[in-house]
């Protein structure tokens, strides 16, 4: 029986009268990659925002390594070892790539860098891991789409997380770039980091996920092994669509 490193129980987030996330319960098992899929607007990013403390929950509870996470300020969540990437990457424009990643190293999990020299060394290591070290001193603004995503990933990794949540890191990548990103994420998992991956790129979800959680209108539709979930006719009807089903049959 695998250990749940992070547990969400009845998580609800309302904006005015609208429940963006309604009563979502799930466990994230240590060492796994959990895929999170669902139609646009189904609450995936909002769920990650609430779990990581970027937004306060309206209801429910999140626990991480058996301590309460709900209600903690965002930066405390990072210090405990939970980090995430953002869909729209907004680097510090006046800083270089390595300096952006150093921010992650300096404000990450407890025990991390507290001086600039250590932070730089750690940032350089992470940049080498994501194969972006050749751009370390480039201005962050000058990166192309795949590079920007790798920098964002590096920034989150430099925080030395135990749990890393990725929000659509594959968007805008072509199939060859997706393959490379999938390999990179697997290597992150091999380093002992537990992952939650939000994606619409089904090729990546299929290749990465140990389990998949499906949201629909803010609620859990289903959860389980990829083979079961991706063939579930409710998931096909709500999310995957006809062309996916045809291609899958081909």
């Amino acid at each position, binding site marked *: 029986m695998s250990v749940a490193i992070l547990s969400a129980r009845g998580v609800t987030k309302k904006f005015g009268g609208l429940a963006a996330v309604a009563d979502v319960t799930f466990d994230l098992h240590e060492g796994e990659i959990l895929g999170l899929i669902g139609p*646009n607007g189904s609450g995936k*990013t909002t769920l990650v925002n609430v779990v990581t403390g970027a937004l306060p929950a309206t209801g429910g509870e999140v626990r991480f390594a058996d301590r309460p996470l709900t209600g903690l300020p965002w930066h405390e969540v990072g210090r405990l070892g939970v980090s995430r990437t953002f869909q729209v990457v907004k680097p510090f424009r006046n800083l270089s790539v390595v300096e952006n990643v150093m921010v992650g190293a300096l404000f990450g999990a407890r025990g991390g860098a507290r001086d600039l020299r250590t932070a730089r060394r750690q940032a350089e290591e992470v940049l080498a891991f994501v194969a972006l070290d050749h751009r370390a001193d480039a201005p962050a603004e000058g990166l192309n789409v795949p590079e920007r995503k790798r920098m964002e990933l590096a920034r989150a990794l430099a925080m030395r997380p135990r749990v890393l949540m990725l929000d659509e890191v594959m968007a805008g990548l072509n*199939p060859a770039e997706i393959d490379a990103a999938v390999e990179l994420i697997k290597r992150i998992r091999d380093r002992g980091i537990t992952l939650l991956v939000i994606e619409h790129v089904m090729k990546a979800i299929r290749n990465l996920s140990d389990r998949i959680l499906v949201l629909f209108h803010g609620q859990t539709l289903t959860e389980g092994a990829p083979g079961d979930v991706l063939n579930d006719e409710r998931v096909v009807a709500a999310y995957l669509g006809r062309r996916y089903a045809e291609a899958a049959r081909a």
Partner: protein
Amino acid sequence: MLEVRQLSAGYGAMQILRDVTLSVPAGEIVTLVGSNGAGKSTLLNTVCGIIKPVGGRVLLDGTDITGRASEAIVALGITQVPEGRRLFPTMTVRDNLILGAYRRRDAKAIAHDLAWVYELFPILEERQRQAAGSMSGGEQQMCAIGRGLMARPRLLILDELSLGLAPIMLDTLVDALTKVHHEGMTIFLVEQDVATAFDLATTGYVLENGRVVLSGPTSELRADSHVKKAYLGL
């Protein structure tokens, strides 16, 4: 309708496009595929007058529009749905959509088109009074495409149509674009989701390092071994 002849362009000292020639015949759907950094957005920016080329020409229906201001190019009937949405985030969804039609004067047809966009994307109707920037990424993408459709352009250019969209939404879009295409709209699609691009377009161009390396009917490109390996991931 749109012809690009030996176009070279870039940003300052950095040359991105080298000698690019392609054409989008009236009434067709043409796609341009290529990796990130290959120059696809640079090409669109040059066609739409956002940057000026250093060489070559852009022609619309035989008229040279090279280097003309963007507003003049829009007035000629070209609309671009840019990569990354670029909605007006504090304006309502409805206002963003209506703004797409700002050059049009046919009020009844505009109302009809708005109803059609809401039919395509019911969530936009649901959220019509919400600030566009408060929606999810995928919902914003739908709004950006809806705004482009509201212009009813002669030539609709879509840059990364599929970005952040659920697979089922792509079905809706493929159907919608096929429909407007049958009604006479010419479409130029720049796209990373090569499978979707080839489903929609009859002709394709492959851009690598700023040059067109391959072109032809998408039925043939689909089977090309280089395309399969590099872009279809097969």
